[in-house]
C-alpha cells in the first residue's frame, strides 16, 4: 500500500531532525533547509543517505537538489537565476513551488523547503 503524505512527512521530519540537529517543531512545511534550518552542503548528502535508508529509495546525484544548475554561469549570473536557469529549475525540480521565487530569483533564496523534500519523496515512493 502506498504511503500517505502524512506518513512521508513524519519520516522526512525525523530525517531532517537527525541530519540537521534541529528541533522537531522547527521542521515546518514551509521551512527552507538552508535559510531556516541551517543546512550546509554536506548536509544534503547526509539527508540523501538518510532518505534512501528511511524510504528504501535511490536518490541519484543532483536529482533532489541540482547543485550544478546553481553554479552554471548560463543559469546564474550576478547571484540571480537567469530565464534559462529558471526554465532548467522548473524542469529539474517540478516538486518545488517557484512562483514567488521567480519574481526575485536570487539564487541564495531558492525555496527548497521541507514540503519540497516531501514532494520529492512522494514521487519516488509512488
Amino acid at each position, binding site marked *: 500500500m502506498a504511503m500517505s503524505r502524512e506518513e512521508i512527512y513524519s519520516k522526512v521530519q525525523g530525517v531532517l531532525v537527525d541530519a540537521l540537529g534541529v528541533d522537531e517543531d522547527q521542521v515546518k512545511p514551509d521551512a527552507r533547509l538552508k535559510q531556516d534550518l541551517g543546512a550546509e552542503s*554536506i548536509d544534503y548528502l547526509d539527508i540523501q*543517505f538518510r532518505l534512501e535508508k528511511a524510504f528504501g529509495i535511490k536518490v541519484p546525484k543532483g536529482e533532489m537538489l541540482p547543485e550544478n544548475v546553481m*553554479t552554471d554561469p548560463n543559469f546564474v549570473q550576478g547571484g540571480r537565476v537567469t530565464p534559462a536557469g529558471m526554465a532548467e529549475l522548473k524542469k529539474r525540480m517540478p516538486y518545488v513551488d517557484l512562483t514567488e521565487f521567480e519574481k526575485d530569483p536570487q539564487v541564495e533564496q531558492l525555496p527548497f523547503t521541507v514540503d519540497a523534500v516531501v514532494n520529492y519523496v512522494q514521487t519516488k515512493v509512488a
Partner: protein
Amino acid sequence: MRWIWIDKFTEFTSRTSATTVKNVTLAEEQLHDLYPDFPIYPHSLIVEGMAQTAGILVGEAGGFAEKVILAKIGRATFHQLVRPGDTLTFSAKIEQFSQQGASASGTVTTNGKLVAEIELMFSHIDQNMAGMEFPEHNFVFTEQFTELLKTYRVQGEIAL
C-alpha cells in the same frame, strides 16, 4: 609529529568494516594539555582515530582514487575517560557509500568497555562542492600513506 592516531589495523573487510587499535602512552604530549596532573586522552583525538579508521575504509572502497575528507560528525557520544596505558579499539563500518561520499558509524572500546559511539560523514570532495577546484594530486592518500600501506601488505597481516 605525524598526524596518525591509529597504530595498526587488526581487521579489514573491503567496503564493509575495519578495526584498528591505538595504544595510549603517558609520553604523549597531548595527554597533559587538558587538566594539570590528570592526564587523559582528548575526545577530539578519539574522533580523529575513528575518522582515520573509517576514512581509510572509505578510501579503499574507492580504490584510494578519491580525496576522502571528514565532512561531518553526525554524533559523538562519550561514555568514559581514556587514561595512559589504555588500548583503544576502533570498530568502524560503512553505512552508505556513493559516488559523492559515505557515511560510517563505529564504537570505541578499551578493555571491553564502551568508550564512545561515533557517526561520521565523508565527502569525495572532487565529486561535491560544485564550482570549487582542488589540487590534482591526492593530498589525502599521500605517497607517505601508500608506502605505509605497502608495508602492511608485505606483512600480510590484513588484506588491505
